[in-house]
């Protein structure tokens, strides 16, 4: 009989065996798990379910598998986390909403934050009781991120933060914001930046949600007015925030593509139900693109599991993942345009419309398509300006 606990999580242990054990647990826990996987057009319900799912997974060890012990995990690697993700999608999951940040922000905290801070905050992130947002962009600093102006000035044991962030995804539901702030001069550009974790319940923080084109309000502006942040919440050293940001962005552009491709498969599979023979070539083309995203993601996960520094190659993943997402939704629009364009009359259709419109903007978040192409040109192909 296959066990129902994570079991041996060492690097050489059998990943397929781990997946099989998780499937057994999932099958036996359907009554508890299935309601938390279901799709809802109401975002608040989705977030609630995502929290409850994290709690359940952690209670049984699966949500701790792949996370280091110093962060409250059971050991293992990102491959274990990715297996759990894939199996949940296979079981009908619509995605982790605010906990997509888990794969982006938690590894960054583990890598750069002080061990005491990691112990204080990461376990609560894993078990779903606390979630995080990422405060990099500002109204005047988008692609040119190194021009950002939010300031943090040292005052005793604290930093005092003033400024504003924008497009801060999921901050409406978040307890923390990992913010890239200026501690040096504007002329120092990226060398004058530091990364700091800000408790969003602190006095002087104001979160204003932004209603988006697709009707949801996942994005927000976050304003900081004389917000006191303990220096112990610095993530990495003063003046080294850019390195921390690059580490985080390699996750957002790169390793996250595994989770996203699982979601793409879910939508594409559903879409095949309304397709006819005349879509075969285009469908085949999207299936192939998806295979490319999956293969590129698997390579990056394996490199991350081996402890490799993920560099500019993550730009490949971002380019492939977002192109595929747009091709996929283009195809869904072409085969059933009314479902996407006309007022919806079911929660599933509302969700489809939200996702369609979201797919239009995915070539912007995490660094635009043009910036990713420039990264590949300069840092992979070695092409130079001038």
């Amino acid at each position, binding site marked *: 009989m296959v066990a129902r606990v994570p079991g041996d999580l060492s690097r050489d242990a059998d990943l397929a065996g781990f997946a099989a054990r998780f499937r057994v647990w999932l099958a036996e826990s359907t009554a508890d798990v299935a309601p938390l996987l279901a799709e809802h057009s109401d975002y608040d319900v989705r977030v609630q379910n995502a929290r409850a799912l994290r709690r359940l997974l952690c209670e049984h060890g699966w949500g701790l598998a792949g996370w280091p012990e110093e962060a409250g995990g059971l050991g293992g690697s990102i491959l274990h986390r990715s297996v759990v993700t*894939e199996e949940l999608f296979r079981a009908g999951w619509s995605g982790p909403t605010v906990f997509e940040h888990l794969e982006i922000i938690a590894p960054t905290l583990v890598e750069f934050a002080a061990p005491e801070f990691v112990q204080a905050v990461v376990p609560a992130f894993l078990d779903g009781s606390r979630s995080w947002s990422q405060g990099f962009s500002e109204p005047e600093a988008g692609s040119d991120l190194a021009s950002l102006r939010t300031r943090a000035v040292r005052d005793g044991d604290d930093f005092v933060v003033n400024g504003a962030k924008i497009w801060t995804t999921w901050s409406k539901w978040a307890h923390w914001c990992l913010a890239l702030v200026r501690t040096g001069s504007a002329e120092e550009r990226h060398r004058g930046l530091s990364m700091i974790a800000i408790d969003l319940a602190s006095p002087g923080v104001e979160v204003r949600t932004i209603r988006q084109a697709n009707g949801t309000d996942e994005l927000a502006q976050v304003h900081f007015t004389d917000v006191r942040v303990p220096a112990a919440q610095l993530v990495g050293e003063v003046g080294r925030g850019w390195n921390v940001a690059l580490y985080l962005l390699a996750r957002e552009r790169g390793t996250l593509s595994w989770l996203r491709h699982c979601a793409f*498969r879910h939508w594409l599979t559903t879409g095949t139900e309304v397709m006819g023979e005349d879509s075969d070539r285009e469908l*085949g083309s999207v*299936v*192939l693109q998806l295979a490319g995203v999956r293969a590129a993601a*698997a390579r990056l*996960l394996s490199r991350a599991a081996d402890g490799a520094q993920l560099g500019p190659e993550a730009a490949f993943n971002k380019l492939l993942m977002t192109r595929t997402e747009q091709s996929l939704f283009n195809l869904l629009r072409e085969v059933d345009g009314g479902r996407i364009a006309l007022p919806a009359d079911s929660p599933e259709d509302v969700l489809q419309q939200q996702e369609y419109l979201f797919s239009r903007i995915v070539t912007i978040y995490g660094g635009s398509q043009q910036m990713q192409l420039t990264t*590949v*040109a300069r840092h992979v192909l070695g*092409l130079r300006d001038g």
Partner: protein
Amino acid sequence: MADGDLRPADYVGFRDAAAAILGRHSGAGALDAFGFTDVYADGAEDLRPAYAFLEAQGSCCVSTPALGLLALAGLDDDRLATDGRSPLFGAPVGRSSLVAVPGMTPDDGVLVDRRGSGLVAVEDPSAVRRTPPAPVADDYLTVLDLDRAECRVVVPEGEAEALREGIVARTRLGAAAELLGLTDRLLRDAAGYAGQRAQFGRTLSSFQAMQHLLAWAATERHQLTCLFDIAVAGSAAGPVDPELARAVKAMAGRVFHAVAQTAIQVTGAISFTWEHSLNRPHQRGMALDQLAGSSADLVAAIGRQARTEGVVPELFALAAGAADT
């Protein structure tokens, strides 16, 4: 591209060794220098060096019969060999009765797959070869018209059925290896050219429009290497999964065409000359795309299967994809 640290080290080692040989030899001589036939002499258990050889062959744009041998690797059947020499496999082209034989010389025997008859030997291959009225840019593939050929059954239909899947999968993966090498060659040459040629007092590669074209080409190539490497790594452990081999071949054809178009755009009018270094690899890749299922036909077949079965294939398990990189 210098991505040795991103791809499986063993494989890259074989590929680079093959490239060094292919810089000096071609044809059967190159195969001997690499020890190609030894690769599958013991039952074709690990064909990774053969795929690596083919990738290098594409990248150097050299002709050898490697792909025709690989298709029949491991069949270990005395009936196949004529005069003690291994025949080459003639791979189907499109939906016609044509087959194409890679790196064929007048002395080579040719074996083809005929549904209903089995694996059959073409009696006098040279007599049924297509003879173009004018010189061709690349003569790597010899095209035979089976409608005009006398054939002799070597492996009857009853036995051939069990061999078919493996032959097709190896041909597809082998052709994909060559297409990947050709893609690399075109990308490398185009990037090199853009770094040399100046217009408006700057190198072409300093223009963002050129950088982004080349970056897309590199991205296409990257996804192909990732999927290809997974299939090749898997081939060491057992027969290649036919669905995976089909996807790799389809992607290889598509990526090749996309990168070839970029290379032509980046190099400008000069690439439209007969002698330009791009012409031959371009012609070769176009022809290889037609072999054992064109990317156009395979993509449609992949879509048809996904639609009728309502399943979007995963193609490999994470454990397998992660294992060998």
